[in-house]
């Protein structure tokens, strides 16, 4: 049996798939640990999983730094190409620099056979190389590795930031090592990822859908009472601040209040004193259980929600806000599974028209179902676990032979 360790950034969307893959590895009798800055992760680990917390013999400064990175991404709203600069300069590079030493210490302690590091936790790859431990990479936000032919310098700039950090931490190479040469698992299907040739170390394993433990309460009876009406989920994730949410949902209310459809909103209900009668508003919803009863989704283009929606064969309207969401939205439009709106510019009537269009024109649903089928074919959690087990076995044999 092998020892696996996942190295994850403090970002839910990047962590959740590793919890599902890790659970499968644990079930098969392997030892599995997670290296993270986030103490609260211990509450979400599958049974038998260990948390290896990055902590320092705390000068208070370092401790404060650790906490700072936990919610840094929610603090500032940046838009478009600017958001890429912010993400690297103010989040990823300092986060990775800060985490590196802790990761190295934990690897010394845990002695894994195989490391699985997130594509944005390049400190994990750097530590693996410096410690001479094999590593695989999980690409949990596949749109982030896309290179735009027309704007190649964006990707080049990102790579330069990573290479500079690698050198600072003792890896003298001119290429980014964030994506492993041994195995880089891309958590989508080739059909959804789209045209761009990737080398053979990249494997499309499909999205890894994470089933949360425990029950999130939901008023199923209320949903039942509204049978016969189209039902639409509206969620823009947890990342963005209050003001943005308020502006956004004000337009959603204007678009759908009193319309012959049921709108399920993921938001703090106290955002508005009153919501329209045809809205169901909850801070959290059991999204996976709910999606099979819905007809369409409006979202901001987070990878996980988009994949869960497509897995259920539902069309969507994507309203990207920042980071790689614009690419995700671009793919949804390109495969014909939905429409996109500009977050800052759209007005309620555009949202209303777009939702009517995806509900009434069956081609959107058909395209969504096709992508959903491609996800299923790619395999998902079990396939990812198989690849990791195989890789760890190969490495053991190689070590024995040497």
């Amino acid at each position, binding site marked *: 049996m092998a020892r696996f360790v996942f190295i994850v950034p403090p970002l839910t969307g990047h962590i959740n798939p590793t919890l599902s893959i890790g659970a499968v590895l644990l079930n098969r009798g392997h030892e599995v640990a997670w290296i993270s800055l986030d103490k609260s992760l211990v509450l979400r680990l599958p049974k038998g999983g260990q948390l290896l917390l990055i902590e320092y013999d705390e000068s208070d400064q370092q401790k404060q730094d650790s906490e700072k990175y936990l919610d840094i991404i929610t603090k500032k709203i940046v838009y*478009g*190409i*600017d958001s890429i600069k912010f993400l690297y300069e103010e989040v990823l590079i300092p986060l990775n620099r800060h985490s590196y030493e802790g990761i190295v210490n934990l690897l010394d302690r845990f002695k894994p056979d195989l490391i699985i590091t997130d594509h944005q936790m390049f400190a994990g790859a750097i530590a693996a190389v410096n410690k001479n431990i094999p590593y695989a990479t999980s690409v949990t936000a596949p749109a982030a590795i896309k290179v*735009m032919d*027309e704007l190649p*310098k964006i990707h080049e700039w990102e790579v330069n930031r990573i290479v500079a950090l690698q050198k600072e931490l003792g890896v003298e190479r001119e290429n980014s090592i964030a994506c492993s040469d041994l195995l880089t698992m891309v958590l989508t299907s080739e059909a959804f990822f789209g045209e761009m040739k990737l080398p053979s170390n990249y494997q499309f394993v499909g999205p890894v859908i994470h089933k949360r433990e425990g029950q999130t309460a939901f008023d199923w009876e209320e949903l039942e009472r509204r049978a016969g009406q189209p039902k639409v989920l509206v969620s823009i994730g947890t990342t963005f601040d209050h003001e943005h949410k308020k502006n956004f949902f004000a337009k959603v209310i204007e678009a759908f209040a009193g319309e012959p459809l049921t709108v399920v909103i993921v938001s703090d209900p106290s955002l508005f004193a009153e919501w329209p009668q045809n809205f169901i508003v909850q801070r959290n919803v059991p999204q996976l259980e709910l999606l099979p009863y819905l007809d369409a989704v409006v979202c901001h283009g987070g990878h996980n929600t988009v994949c869960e929606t497509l897995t259920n064969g539902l069309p969507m309207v994507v309203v990207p806000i920042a980071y790689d969401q*614009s690419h995700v939205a671009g793919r949804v439009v390109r495969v014909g599974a939905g429409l996109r709106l*500009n977050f800052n*510019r759209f*007005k309620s009537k555009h949202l209303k028209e777009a939702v009517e269009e995806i509900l009434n024109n069956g081609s959107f649903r058909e395209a969504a179902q096709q992508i959903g089928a491609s996800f299923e074919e790619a395999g998902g959690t079990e396939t990812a676990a198989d690849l990791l087990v195989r890789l760890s076995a190969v490495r053991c044999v190689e070590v024995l032979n040497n």
Partner: protein
Amino acid sequence: MDAVVSTAKLNSNEIFDLMKQFITEVIGEEFVEEMDITMESSFTKDLEMDSIEIVSFSEKIKAHFGEQIDFTGWLSNMDLDQLINLNLGTIVNYIEECQ
């Protein structure tokens, strides 16, 4: 005498109007009406266009001028900061010089 070109040479005002038309096509007429688009307007901060929209805009320029101007080549040489600060005036000047 210069070789005959398919498009008549445009002055900077005409280029500006053409660019405005392309922006309108990318982001929609009603939004453009609400904006004060000038030579100083930056694509990211003022026009709030994201990378995908900037690429659609560049495709329109390419389709219009064809071989005459290597707009995509020029754009692909821009680094991140240049792209973030890219404004309409820079593009108008470039096209004017290339004609």
